[in-house]
């Protein structure tokens, strides 16, 4: 719906997620990128990305997250970082670390890279490589001493699910040994490819219950040393998450070919058209594009949500999840206990027997 003169002014976005490529050496079972990846030859040019980063800074965006796929697959990465940093953005890179030599890292830090996020698939090499669909674990471990030579903050991200949640304590101990500045413990989110492996990855209720005090104890123990943030597993909640901080409220994502989206998974919602940064500037897209206005505010919400004070906190939850689970993008997020479809989640929490893993490609 178009923004009219009665609409409240749109607050400026806080972060830009730039999926600069979908090419990736890993094939993680829990990959949340879309089923259909964008092809390398269709990617935005160096000049397109540089223009986008400058427009982002002008729009008031503070944080740039370079991600993918694997950002290192772009040969122009240092040049992109340098432009983003010069424009005033805080530059973060989410990477597998595969192919990151000391020499290349030096060039990226020199260009202005400030923070790097490295995820681990498990603590044991065999299962970690199994989950990642490639032999990446040893390379990631070998990167840590190199990272520490540079004035760069780094986050270790532990991605957890049924296959590794029983080893959470030892997994956290591994992360502590690596001594990052930040530690994230993130449950798999069931979007994109991950949805295909949901019955394999979905933890049991017992696993989730056991993990919570372990995480709380780690937070307490690491206070002042490593900042720990944990993402609760959606499907086990009674109220939805404030997905992406609310639709079109805080963040903008640009995919490798330049489509600007309000969230990572938004392409699953039918009839949403994403304007492209090749055709429009970021300010117009943020303020006026139909996709960013589609679920802004509360006019799309059900009566249940409209009457609920939580709408100011969770902004109606996740639209992509509502669509994926109910077939209706305007439905109440089924994570919410007031959703008529909440029972569905209870069924999905029960793991199915011996599902087979599916990797991309």
């Amino acid at each position: 719906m178009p923004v009219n003169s009665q609409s409240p002014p749109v607050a400026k976005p806080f972060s830009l997620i730039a999926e600069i490529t979908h090419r990736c050496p890993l094939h993680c079972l829990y990959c949340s990128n879309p089923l259909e990846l964008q092809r390398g030859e269709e990617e935005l040019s160096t000049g397109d990305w540089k223009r986008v980063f400058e427009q982002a800074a002008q729009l008031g965006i503070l944080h740039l997250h370079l991600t993918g796929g694997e950002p290192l697959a772009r040969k122009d990465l240092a040049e992109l970082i340098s432009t983003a940093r010069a424009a005033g953005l805080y530059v973060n890179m989410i990477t597998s670390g595969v192919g990151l030599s000391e020499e290349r890292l030096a060039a990226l830090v020199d260009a202005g890279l400030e923070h790097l996020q490295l995820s681990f698939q498990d603590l044991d090499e065999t299962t970690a490589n199994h989950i990642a669909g490639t032999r990446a674990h040893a390379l990631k471990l070998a990167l840590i001493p190199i990272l520490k030579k540079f004035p760069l903050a780094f986050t270790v991200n532990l991605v957890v699910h049924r296959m590794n949640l029983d080893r959470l304590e030892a997994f956290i101990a591994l992360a502590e040994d690596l001594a990052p500045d930040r530690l994230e413990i993130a449950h798999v989110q069931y979007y994109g490819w991950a949805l295909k492996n949901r019955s394999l990855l979905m933890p049991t209720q017992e696993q989730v219950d056991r993990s919570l005090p372990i995480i709380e104890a780690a937070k307490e123990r690491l206070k002042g040393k490593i900042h720990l943030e944990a993402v609760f597993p959606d499907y086990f909640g009674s109220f939805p998450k404030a997905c992406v901080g609310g639709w079109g409220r805080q963040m903008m994502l640009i995919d490798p070919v330049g489509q600007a989206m309000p969230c990572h998974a938004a392409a699953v919602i039918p009839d949403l058209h994403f304007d492209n940064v090749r055709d429009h500037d970021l300010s117009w897209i943020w303020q006026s594009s139909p996709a960013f206005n589609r679920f802004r505010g509360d006019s799309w919400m059900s009566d249940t949500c409209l009457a609920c004070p939580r709408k100011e906190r969770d902004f109606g939850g996740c639209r992509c999840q509502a669509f994926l689970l109910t077939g209706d993008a305007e439905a109440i997020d089924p994570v919410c206990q007031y959703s008529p479809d909440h029972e569905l989640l209870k069924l999905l929490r029960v793991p199915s027997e011996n599902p087979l893993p599916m990797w991309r490609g």
Partner: protein
Amino acid sequence: MDLNATPRLAAGCRLHPTEAVMLIPEGTLKLQGPARDILAHLDGKHSVAAIVDELLKQYEGVDRDDIQQDVLSLLDRMEQRGVVRV
């Protein structure tokens, strides 16, 4: 933290060039009151005592003990959060 410590900002943390905001990995911290002015003095060389001296010049007529208390309490909180290192 004591008055002889020489704090600095942790890697990956910096002040926004104009706004009262600290940019940190995956987020920002809003800075209230004199917090931005205090943090702008951290360079890993000047002691907390020297930073208090500088702030006294900046905020004329303010009591030294008050400023010192503000500085120490802010730096302790920021150290806990991993934003300031000694």
